[in-house]
């Protein structure tokens, strides 16, 4: 049942104070049937604009959108068979929960008996059985969110589009709802695009993540790939915490690169399609959990030492300049460092990656 979705070279130019702003700049993406793709990026990066163009709320300035092989670029919203979940839920305040969920079915001209059955099923699916007589303002944020979800799911849309649907919920509920949404999406096998600025949401829910910055795609890939092999400093920094250590290239063989960092020569993986030249600057991306106190490695001074229960966090000023963050699992009896103390940090070169700067 699930359908494919294709964006080819989509752009959107807005006019702000009579100056054109490229909110979305040549974005291409193909989504397989049943796949869940998250758009991740800072606010203003164009992720919501893309989603609204897929929905049909905005018309692309250039490029094309196709759903299930059909070009829908100029098809109005109400004939696209999409389900859109809004950040503020956009429940109709003058209708009961039942009428909200039944709205799309009534538009389709579904029979009253079918409407009753489908609304019941929809509310059951999102865990709100029996709430059909309530009005939106009598529900909590989380419940409103579920109604909004049920309202689009009863229509069995070809594509489910969600615009930061969890950002108005509190932290605990957010974590619960993200597994819930993922479960429903898999159960119904519906193609889904999901916009968020929360990397935790993106990492836990998606088949693939599209990281965006300033209207352009930075990288598209499965969560783990993005974490272990960021293609750019932006992605490295945006997903998880990263130490970006400046160094210079010594040698490069196409897949691995020898980098000189803080007086030490280290061989690490090179970013894909890189072209390092000797003596050029390079940046080493090392995750804090891969940078641990040791007998050998880069020397530095502890600036702050913080105990977090499960681990110690050290902010270290390296001898060659630069500041890094190190996570050390805490075990009773293990040596800890205090502020001002000399420290050496070691990392496993096979899990670090070098980027061009």
């Amino acid at each position, binding site marked *: 049942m699930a359908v494919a979705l294709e964006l080819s070279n989509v752009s959107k130019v807005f006019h702000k104070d009579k100056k054109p702003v490229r909110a979305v700049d040549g974005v291409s993406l193909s989504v397989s049937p049943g796949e869940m793709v998250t758009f991740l990026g800072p606010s203003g990066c164009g992720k919501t604009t893309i989603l609204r163009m897929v929905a049909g709320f905005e018309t692309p300035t250039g490029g094309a959108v196709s759903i299930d092989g059909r070009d829908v670029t100029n098809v109005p919203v109400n004939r696209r068979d999409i389900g859109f979940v809004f950040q503020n839920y956009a429940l109709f*305040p003058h209708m009961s929960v039942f009428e909200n969920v039944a709205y799309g079915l009534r538009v389709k001209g579904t029979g009253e008996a079918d409407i009753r059955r489908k609304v019941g099923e929809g509310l059951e699916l999102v865990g709100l059985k029996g709430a059909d007589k309530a009005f939106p303002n009598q529900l909590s944020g989380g419940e409103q969110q579920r109604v909004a979800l049920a309202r689009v799911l009863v229509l069995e849309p070809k594509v489910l589009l969600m615009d930061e649907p969890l*950002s108005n919920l509190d932290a605990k509920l957010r974590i619960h709802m993200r597994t819930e949404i993922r479960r429903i999406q898999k159960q119904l096998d519906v193609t889904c695009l999901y916009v968020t600025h929360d990397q935790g949401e993106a990492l836990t829910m998606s088949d693939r993540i599209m990281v965006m910055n300033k209207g352009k795609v930075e990288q598209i890939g499965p969560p783990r790939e993005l974490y272990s092999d960021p293609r750019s400093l932006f992605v490295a920094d945006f997903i998880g915490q990263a130490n970006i250590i400046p160094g210079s290239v010594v040698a490069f063989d196409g897949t691995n690169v020898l980098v000189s960092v803080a007086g030490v020569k280290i061989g690490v993986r090179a970013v894909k399609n890189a072209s390092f030249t000797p003596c050029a600057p390079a940046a080493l991306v090392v995750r804090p959990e891969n940078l641990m106190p040791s007998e050998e490695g880069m020397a530095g001074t502890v600036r702050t030492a913080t105990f977090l229960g499960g681990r110690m966090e050290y902010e270290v000023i390296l001898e060659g300049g630069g500041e890094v963050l190190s996570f050390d699992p805490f075990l009773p009896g293990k040596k800890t460092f205090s502020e001002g103390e000399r420290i050496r940090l070691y990392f496993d070169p096979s899990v670090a990656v070098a980027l061009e700067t």
Partner: protein
Amino acid sequence: MNSKAPLSVPERVSPFKRDPALLPALAAVWVSLAVFVLYPVIRLFLVTFMAEGQLSFANLTAALSNWYDRQAFVNSLWLAAAVSAAGTLLGYVYAFAVTRIALPPWVKWLLGAVTILPLISPPFTSSIALTLSLGPNGILLKLLGVGNFNFYGFWGTWLSETLTYFPVAFMTLAAILSAVDPNLEDAALSLGASPGRVFRTVTLPLSIPGIANSVLLLFAGSLADFATPLVLAGHNFPVLPTQAYLQITGLYDLRGGAALSFLLLVPAMAVYVLQRFWVGKKSYVTISGKSGARSAFKSKGRLAEGLVTGVCFFVTAFILYLYSLILWGAMVKVWGVDNSLTLENFRYVFTHGRKAILDTLSVAAVATPLGGLLAVVVGYLSQRKKFFGNRAMEFFSLLNYALPGTVVGIAYIIAFNEKPLHITGTMTILVAAYMFRYSSAGIRAVIASLHQIDPSVEEASASLGASAARTFFRVTVPLVIPAVLMGMRYLFILSMTAISSTIFLVSVKWNLLTTRILECMTELQFAQACAFSVVLILLVFAATAVMAGLTRLAARRISGEGGRG
């Protein structure tokens, strides 16, 4: 650190002790409300319900048994219903065009500007222009070749009042339509609904509170309107305000006039109470978190858009036509007879009308700052201080505005034409009439702006050691100044253009521009009436432009950004 915090004050201490200025301020407000709002209304009731020294319905039954007066009552209600329906519909069309259709900015500006015109004009403007075009020898009639057409009566009054009052509907509805979360309409579209269905099932139901409010406002406006029916209704279509006026000025029958104005007061009060306690509570417009981007204007269907824009253009053109007619009428020698241009009429206005101009300006200039002060004090007391009767204080301070002007005027001549307060014929009575009737907008604006200012700002001042009076003058007043100036602008406009209450209160010593226009109309001096209207509109326009500038300046100084005009 905590010994001087306001929280340490025991809760049972009387507010009067904590704030020594409160009692005198309260006393001053209540005394003035009692004298200029409650007392006249009570006197009106007494005159209506007392006959030969005892309680009686004789005056009322006399009015109700008179066929002509009964007809006036029915006509008034029927006219008000028709005007509120048509005006609200037209206002909705305008508001929809401005908030929902992708029109070029200059078109939206034009639509907004045209709706301002009737609001700052004297109430006769559209009546005069309509008389000149559709009355006997009207130029539109000549143009269309219609010979025998009686424009006076229901249709003329209805048309003129609809054009005069629809801007009120427009402002109410534009506010509510632009407050409807655009995501709701987007959501309905994404669920498959057509633009027409979205309008029917989402936009329209969500604007119902605004529609109800607009219907009530226009009903009250038309019910109270005095100037339009006086010029256009004629003898076959009597309405209450003009009947009451004629009863008093023509027949010197104060009791009959009081009874008729009581009949007018009952539906007006019903509307006021409905509006305050029913419509006020029924609103779906809520701000729930971040509502996301306002989406680009999506087509509502070519037919609907064409129809809405067409209506707006037609009405806008008609209003502009009416106003140019006034200007033209002011510049010809004798309307319809000798159409050569002249400035003679303006010379007449500045010589024979000089006193009226100066009197009107003096009354408005005195009433405006006093009304502003009243608005600040009443707004502050009722919004910020909790004490017995502050809801009642708010209610009475807005009461005179809710009553039709004719009722207030009649109540004032009944109350103030004899001792102990014999002030008819003075400037005081004109100022008081305007001040207590038209400061309502200012009071409501002050209450609204205080509602938005967190009380902690004032608490901060108090915790820094300032007295209540110092906090009020140094913190609260500067923060509400934009609201007060807005209210004063409104008060000034109405003081310049009102007639319904003050027609009873003018005298040889104190005359007003609006009454001069009425005199010209009754003596069929159309050219002079037009010239007076033009001068009055220009005066109001100049004065409001100055005050709008002041408002913007004050708003900028306080918020650091452009204020709302």
